[in-house]
């Protein structure tokens, strides 16, 4: 649980057409799946919007939750069990 080293903050860019770019990695495309994986490994991520320059990390988080979760049971999964699985 403890991560002793300071984790650098990585800022990704949300392009006008909705793609996610990692400028520190040559402007490579980052898929939502990868974003999630990187988040889970403990990377500190922030997302900025290309045009407005504003922070849109939260929008991405919500999108992430919204798009990758239905695969694992969807809304109905919630009704099946409320406890742990």
């Amino acid at each position: 649980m403890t991560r002793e080293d300071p984790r650098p903050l990585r800022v990704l860019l949300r392009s006008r057409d909705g793609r996610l770019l990692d400028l520190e990695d040559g402007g490579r495309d980052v898929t939502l799946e990868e974003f999630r994986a990187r988040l889970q490994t403990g990377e500190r991520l922030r997302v900025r919007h290309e045009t407005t320059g504003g922070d849109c990390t939260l929008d991405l988080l919500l999108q992430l939750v919204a798009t990758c979760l239905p695969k694992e049971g969807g809304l109905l999964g919630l009704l099946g069990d409320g406890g742990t699985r």
Partner: protein
Amino acid sequence: MSGGRNRKVAHLMTLLVSDVLTSRERIGVEHAELARQQRRARRIRETIENLGPFWVKVGQILATRSDVVSDAVLRELAGLQDSVHCEPFDVFEPVLRQELGPRWRAKFREIDTVSPLGSASLAQVYRVVLADGRTAVLKVQRPGTRERVYADMASLRRAARIAGRAVPRIGAVLDIEATLQVIFDCMQPELDFTAEAKHMAQGQRMARDFKGIHIPDVYLATPRVLLQSLAPGEALNKADLSVFSDKQRRRIGSDLLTFMYRGYFVERMFHADPHPGNIFVHPEHGATLIDWGMVGRIDRNLGSLGVMVLTSLAQNDARGLASAWTEMGRATPFADLLGFQEDMTRLVPLITAAALEDLDFGIALTNVLRCAAQRGIRTSPMIGMLGKSITNIEGSVRRIAPELSALEVFEDALTDVMVELARDLLSREQTARRVLELIVAGNSTVDQLRSLLRDLANRELTMRVGLLPGHGMGSDGNGILTRRVAPVLAAGLAVWGVRRLAAGGALARGG
């Protein structure tokens, strides 16, 4: 001797009880009564100073309770002096020998015994140079401290119980046992410096993501001796800020706020006293937080309700605030909930306007706390401490970067909070994920979220949120929903609330 001391304690209790009782009527108090309150407040402070270090600590904790004592006492207690005189180093030498062994001197190349850095209530602090050449700070407990404090604790407990029995109305606003517990918990690190060292280690873990926030390294800790690295720069109340660039000042200010917000809402452990004297600043190095003796801890429910309160404030939502607050505390038999809601309807627009512009969430919280008490709602003592801590950090930040936009920092900090919580959620909690999904997928309004959150926080785990009409959800035996989801929702809510405010309703697009 001890009889005289007991008399003083009894006297102090009498003064405090009268203050607590008369401070109930804060509005429309006559001039003569105010003057009387003022005189009594001064006597309270003097008696406390006279009784010594333990009581000074009690006074400092009372100073976080705007819901309990009068304004006059709050003001007096703010000026509470640890009127301890500086004692010669000889007094402390035996402690060093007992704690570090007969060859203790070999650890130090130099000790500045002539001018101690600080002469605190229960300890004295020296600047030293270690054998390896590093400069450090040595804190040594005054001899005989522990015995004295234990005796004082016992007499406080006795006196508080007597007062509680004699004047039952006190119980309406003050949870005596919980308050005593807070006081005793706060004393612990002063008696055993290894507890302070543990707080510092935890603080360092919390600070690891911040380039510009530091906690001194602990070189050595025993119950009565603490050796730590010297904080670079000057205390914020002494520093010459003209040598800092604007960018450096703003950086430090926003780092400090973000760090504290994370403490309040993610780690739920926070530095209780981040006043300017406890924050050292240096243009390149950034800020160092010292004095980790007093920390606050918040449980999850309190944490999420706390965020709700701030959110409601940010949203200018009096009703939401009143209900979140009521759930955070306990309505006594004397409670006037409707009155409280009315107070909030009057007060919230005023404090919202001020809070957002002037970075005054702490003062806002304190105001609400006070209204709640007047309407018979008893609030957890931790909230007083939280309010005080927020007030202090806001004051400190205002000092270093008065131009910082509270709104921006708040949003920024909470984005950080949200990312951490989302990580937690995504990584480990299947069930919680689905709940979040539900919220995102459904056209939930802030109100629905709020009622969901309230249910979670209340440990009523039936999900009657209205997202899925007519469906209840099975209960969550492990309380995982409560523990994991509530804070996430709370933080999310807060961000949404603030954004909505900032974007003038632009966020409504999603829901």
